[in-house]
C-alpha cells in the first residue's frame, strides 16, 4: 500500500514491492484510462478516416455558431465552445486542488473543491444539453444532417453521426465523473476517508476527471477547430 520513497538505485523488478511505486487501485485506474484512450482514439481516428475519404465536409464554423439567448441569424463561431472548454479546464483545476487538499488531509478544503468540481461538471453537461437541443431543432440528429458541405454540395450524414456519437460518449464520461465525484463528496463528508487515514480515493477520481478534460481537448480540436 505505502508508496516508498524513491532512491536512485532502487531495484524495482527484484520483487517484494510494486515496480510502479503506486498502490494497486491507482495503477489499475491508469490502465483503465489507457484502454479508454484507445476507445476514444478509435472513435476519433474513424472520424478522421471518413472525413479524409469524403469529397466534402460541413464547415464547423457554420454549424456551431450560436449560443444560448442568441437570435436566429447569429454568427458567432467558437464562442460557446470556448466557454465549455473554459468550464472544463476550471473544473480540472478545482479537482487537482481537491486532490492536493486530500494529501494535506484537509477535509474542509476537499469538500469545497469537490463541490466546485461537481458544479463545473454540471455546468458543462448543461452546455452540452443546450447545444444538442439547439442542433436537434436545426434538424440535426443521428441519420439526419441539414448542414451542407463547406463548398455548398450536399453532405452525407457522417458529420452528424460522428458528432453526436463522440460528443455523446464524452458527455457520458462527464456524467459518470460527476456521479463519482458526488460519491467522493459524500464519503469525504461522512468521514470515510478520515477513518481510512488517507484520501487516496480522491486521487483516483481525480485521474478519471482529468482524463475527461483531456479527451475534451481532442474532441474540441477535432470537431470545432479543424
Amino acid at each position, binding site marked *: 500500500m505505502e508508496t516508498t520513497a524513491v*532512491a536512485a538505485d532502487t531495484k524495482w523488478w527484484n520483487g517484494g514491492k510494486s515496480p510502479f511505486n503506486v498502490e494497486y487501485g491507482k495503477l489499475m485506474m491508469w490502465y483503465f484510462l489507457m484502454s479508454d484512450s484507445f476507445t476514444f*482514439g478509435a472513435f476519433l481516428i*474513424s472520424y478522421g478516416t471518413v472525413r479524409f475519404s469524403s469529397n466534402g465536409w460541413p464547415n464547423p464554423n457554420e454549424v456551431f455558431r450560436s449560443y444560448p439567448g442568441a437570435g436566429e441569424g447569429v454568427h458567432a463561431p*467558437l464562442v460557446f465552445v470556448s466557454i465549455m*472548454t473554459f468550464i472544463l*479546464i476550471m473544473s480540472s483545476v478545482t479537482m487537482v486542488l481537491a486532490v492536493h487538499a486530500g494529501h494535506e488531509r484537509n477535509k474542509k478544503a476537499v469538500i469545497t473543491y469537490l463541490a466546485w468540481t461537481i458544479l463545473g461538471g454540471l455546468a458543462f453537461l448543461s452546455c452540452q444539453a443546450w447545444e444538442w437541443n439547439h442542433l436537434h431543432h436545426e434538424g440535426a440528429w443521428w441519420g439526419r444532417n441539414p448542414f451542407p458541405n463547406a463548398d455548398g454540395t450536399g453532405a452525407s450524414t457522417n458529420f452528424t453521426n460522428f458528432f453526436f456519437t463522440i460528443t455523446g460518449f464524452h458527455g457520458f464520461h462527464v456524467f459518470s465523473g460527476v456521479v463519482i465525484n458526488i460519491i467522493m463528496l459524500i464519503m469525504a463528508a461522512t468521514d470515510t476517508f478520515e477513518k481510512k487515514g488517507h484520501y487516496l480515493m480522491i486521487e483516483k477520481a481525480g485521474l478519471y476527471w*482529468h482524463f475527461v478534460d*483531456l479527451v475534451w481537448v481532442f474532441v474540441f480540436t477535432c470537431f470545432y477547430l479543424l
Partner: protein
Amino acid sequence: MEHTHAGEIAHDSHGGGTKEIWRTFWILLVLTIVELILGYILIGVHGTGGRLALKGAIIILMLAKAFYIVAYFMHLKSEIRNLIMTIIVPLALLIWAIIAFLYDGNSFKDNRNTYDAYKRDRSHIQSTDTKADEKGKSGEKRTGAME
C-alpha cells in the same frame, strides 16, 4: 518544461503544490486562447497551404495541452519511469493508427474519384435547401445516405 523535479521526487512523489497547479492552469488557458485565435484566423484563410499550416499549429497546441494535463494535473511526470513507460509506450500504437487510417481514407477517396464516376458526380451536386430537413422536405434535397 526545463524544470526537473528529480530532486523533489524522493520526498514528494505527488508533484509540486498549489503554485504549480495554478502555473499549469495559466499555461493551459494561454494555449487554449492561442488555439482559438488560430481557429478564428482559419475561418478567413482559404488557401490549402495556409489552412494546412494553421491546422498543424492547432494540433501542436492540442498536444501541448494534453502534455500539461497528463504531466501536471495527473502527476504522471512525478511518477517513476516504470509507470510512465507502461502507460505511454502502448499509446504509441495510436501514432501508427492515425497515419495508416487517414492515409487509407485519403486513398479511398482518390480511388473512388478516379474509378467511380457515379459517386464522384454525386458529390458535386449542390445542396439547394439548407434547412430542408427542418421543413420536412428532406426528400427534395440531396442528403446523402450513409456513404
